[in-house]
């Protein structure tokens, strides 16, 4: 178990070095004068905090663009002028202490916050260049272009097969051959096919926790989404299952753009290409994962990733 853990860490570092090639010189030129306390205090006061975005991101193609996005739950503000670009085909992690708004931001991308009473937003988000929050957007269609995996696995009380093909059924697909094909493809993609192929018609609730989460991932990718949103997908799972999910994420990236919220910094450093650090609703620093963990620009970021608070 320990060796596996070490392997994962080394793999992660390997990935990071690929991504961060040739960008370090420019990063080193940013002054490190701003103290940790300043930025955090400013964020705590509710002031607009300028996001420290590493230049590495400028070269990436944007899958999702977030422009000056603010969100209010009733009278209290939860997100303060968040601006960032989610690179296509890469894994982006959102980290930060509890209550920093990372889940809120994630749920804003597929407009799941619309279901909450009293939510108000300003600013905009774009998916592949098209605005998400424009008044003429059909939310249902929008959500079909994205897949979401939740913290607690939530398979529907149906058979495994029906769970996986659910996104197609609600889209009106009825051809049995198409459904079968998509089912197999998705389950393979979620690394569940071998375990599930003999029990496709049994209830999905009979699977173990890790298997259920992989099923949810399979379900999320069945409709071929552009973006995959994951809200702390491993926090309810044991280490072995967690490891398998992380392997899965590794396989899926490239084909899908993945935005993952995580509490676990080691997981973020292992699995993601880019990491965004949020604090009390503001995006403090955002850059390549290796940079963020080894040479963050801001003291605040350094304080968090080294575990001094959070």
């Amino acid at each position: 178990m320990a060796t596996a853990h070490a392997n994962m860490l080394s793999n992660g570092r390997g990935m990071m070095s690929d991504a961060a090639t040739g960008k370090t010189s420019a990063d080193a030129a940013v002054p490190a004068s701003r103290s940790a306390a300043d930025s955090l205090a400013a964020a705590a006061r509710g002031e607009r905090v300028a996001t420290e975005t590493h230049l590495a991101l400028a070269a990436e193609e944007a899958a999702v663009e977030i422009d000056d996005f603010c969100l209010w739950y009733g009278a209290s503000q939860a997100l303060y002028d968040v601006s960032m670009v989610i690179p296509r085909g890469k894994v982006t992690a959102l980290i930060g202490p509890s209550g920093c708004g990372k889940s809120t931001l994630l749920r804003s991308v597929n407009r799941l916050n619309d279901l909450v009473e009293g939510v108000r937003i300003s600013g905009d988000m774009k998916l592949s260049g098209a605005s998400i929050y424009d008044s003429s957007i059909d939310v249902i269609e929008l959500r079909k272009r994205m897949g979401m995996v939740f913290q607690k696995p939530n398979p529907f009380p149906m058979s495994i097969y029906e769970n996986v093909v659910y996104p197609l059924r609600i889209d009106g697909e009825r051809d049995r051959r198409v459904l079968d094909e998509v089912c197999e493809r998705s389950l393979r993609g979620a690394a569940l096919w071998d375990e599930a192929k003999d029990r496709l018609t049994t209830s999905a609730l009979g699977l173990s926790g890790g298997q259920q989460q992989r099923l949810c991932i399979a379900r999320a990718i069945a409709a071929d989404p552009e973006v995959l949103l994951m809200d702390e997908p491993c926090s309810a799972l044991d280490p072995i299952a967690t490891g398998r999910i992380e392997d899965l994420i590794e396989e899926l990236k490239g084909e899908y753009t993945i935005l993952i919220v995580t509490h676990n910094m080691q997981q973020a450093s292992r699995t993601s290409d880019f990491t965004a650090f949020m604090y009390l609703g503001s995006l403090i620093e955002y850059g390549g994962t290796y940079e963020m963990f080894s040479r963050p620009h801001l003291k605040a970021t350094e304080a968090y990733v080294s575990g001094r608070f959070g």
Partner: protein
Amino acid sequence: MRFFDSLARNLIRVGGIGTIVAVSTVFVFLVWVVAPLFRSAGLGELRPIGTAATQLAADERVIAASEDDTLTTVWAYTSSARFVVLPGGASSGRGASSGQPGGELLGEFRPFPTAPTAYAFPVRSTQAVFGFADGTTRLVRAAASTEYRNAASMPRNVMQRSVGETFIFEGRVARRVSADQFELHTVQFVADEPIQVSEGAAIVAVDASETPTGPVEASVDADGILRVTRLTKSRNLLTGMERVETETGQIALRPSHSRGLPRWLLLHGGGNSAIAVWEDGRAVRVDVSDLESLKVAEEVDLSADAAAHLTQVAWLNGKNTLIVGDSNGNVKAWFRVPAPSMSTADGMHFLPAHNLGRGPASVTALGSSARTRSMAVGYGDGTLRLFNITSGNLLAEGRNASSRPLSIVSLAPNDDSLVAWDGEFVIAAVDAPHPEASLGALLRPVWYEGYRSPEHSWQSSSGTDEFEPKLGLWPLVFGTIKATFYSMLFGVPIALMAAIYTSEFLRPEVKSVVKPAIELMASLPSVVLGFLAALVFAPVVEGIVPQILAALVTVPFVLLLCAHLWQLFPQGLRSGMQGRRFVLSGVAIVLGLGAAMVVGPLLERWLFIGDVKLWLDGKAGEATGGWLLLTLPASVLASVVIGGRAERFERLLPGATGVQALLRFLLLSLVSVAAALLVAEGLSLAGLDLRGSLLGTYIQRNALIVGFVMGFAVVPIIYTIAEDALSSIPENLRAGSLALGATPWQTAVRIVVPTAMSGLFSAIMVGLGRAVGETMVVLMAAGNTPVLQWNVFNGFRTLSANIAVELPEAVRNSTHYRTLFLAALTLFVMTFFLNTAAELIRIRFRKRAYQL
């Protein structure tokens, strides 16, 4: 803390067991009250009364006998033309104690100078009628009388008698009822003056009936002339004068096969029809309702088989059913039924309705009960049988110990004893408290007096004893089923749809108002609902029936049309108005109702010949309209299912834009309406008609009103439980579905509802339980008519309403009383089975979703 723990546990255990015990006790109690209904009747041993016969002459025969209701005295009329009074069964060894040997003659009455040539002893009447050789008739009244005497006024030797003892005192039968009171029973006779009926021809047969307006007397004389005299008495209460109008009519009896004079003449209870019967079975029925012109109504042959001749003919209690016994032991019951198609003079036809089978020997005696439709039949070999004529059941059978045939049988007024004559007086105890009740009589069609054919009927009691109780439970069970069906039909869809809408679509702030409001509906007392239904809704609905029928179609159509039109609005406006959807739906429904107001009269003119109630009566117009009510929902359902599936249909007008969806919707509607019309027209042309089964004559208080109002009562119950079941589905399931791009409706239908199925089913079952037991709404608004029709436009009577109405009036421990408890038991059992079945199904549903 431990103490409270175990206290709570024990308390709950006691409570749980207590509930089971209570319910079981109710069940046991009901069965205990009902069981005597089905107990077989008993006939005691036939034993001689004592030495009474020695007081009569050797060749003196008893022609008629009767016991009084206290069973202390018997009066008899003998062949020596005298009335005698004897001590009865209660003082002849049966009963607590008797000091004196029974049987001495207590008195006699000889009113006639010459022996009568004809007589009749009507069952319930206290007067006998006699005819004489000189053409006169006389009435004689025999009345039992009871005098109460204080102990102080009685002689000393009597004071030693114990309480309850009967003895002879001063020519009367005395009984000590308490320490200070004695009863003295006797029979008194009064003979009226003779009435000259014929001019000298002897009277051959005679009968009399007591009608509300006065007595009617009929007689046949030796010349074969039937005469009927009706006395109409009216008493002027101010002056005290009684005015008596006498009417007489006569007709000569000339049957097609003249065989001498008839042996019996029988006058119906209402005094409007008389039957003359010959021994060979031929009978002539004369209509005597209009005394100015008597007409022969019909001639019938009463004999059961050609080889036998009639031996005994007698009326049953109520004088409407005639019991005929012949020399081969056959016993049959005949009565009139209305028969307008037959060519009889009074539109009635005399029919053999019940066949009581063939006895062991010829029929020698017939004795009717004075209170029920039971008849005691004596046969030539000494057998005695007790029948209940209505149900055709043999209640009990006994044998005369001496094996001599019984020539007279008479049942005591309370049906607890009978007195008979076989050469000496014979008495038997009778134990038949519930002769009318048997499973067959309660559940199968029975041929009741005066009805054209056997049918199910519930008419349990009336103000007189001559009434034939009709205790058919099936109309009540049917009524309960009909009430439940129609109320579920209205209540379940509305409640379930409301619950789904509330839990899936409503905003929390609106939900917090709507849910309590609907739950408040449940607190409305059903009496108030019944009152509103009967006195407010029923008259209003009566005037707008076509509009209501139209509303069933226009409201959903307009709602869907508005939904489609709404899609055509710009997205910006729609998102802005998102929160107001609830209000907009309300506006759409109002528009739908308005459309119904307009479409209704048009529909009436087109399909229902301008007057829907006339159309419902079934005599005019085509059946298309009726069929349309069924085919339209069916075709809409079919087109939704088929249209949703057929890809070719999608390709017809592809695209997801509003206009295309609207056009698809309109096309679908048109197709389904056209299909429905076609099928309805086809069915109507094929000669099939819903009128008479599902639809029929419109009655103001009907199943539609009750169904709607009871639905109103049932909706809050189903709604609350269903909404709770739906809300308890974890939010992450919904979130998961929505995140995948499902609409809230798809989420509701595919995920939420199937998962909550067990809860929804429970909700429906609880609602069903309420509907089955609902009493007040039905009582006030359903008309309480025990009809056996599915017609949605007429009423019904349920088990629960029936019990509520009739239990206060049922005489304790009578057949009626126990039958009402049987109705309660039936309701109990029905609900029990329904609930058990529902619980089993619910557990199966729950297994599917248990892991959540």
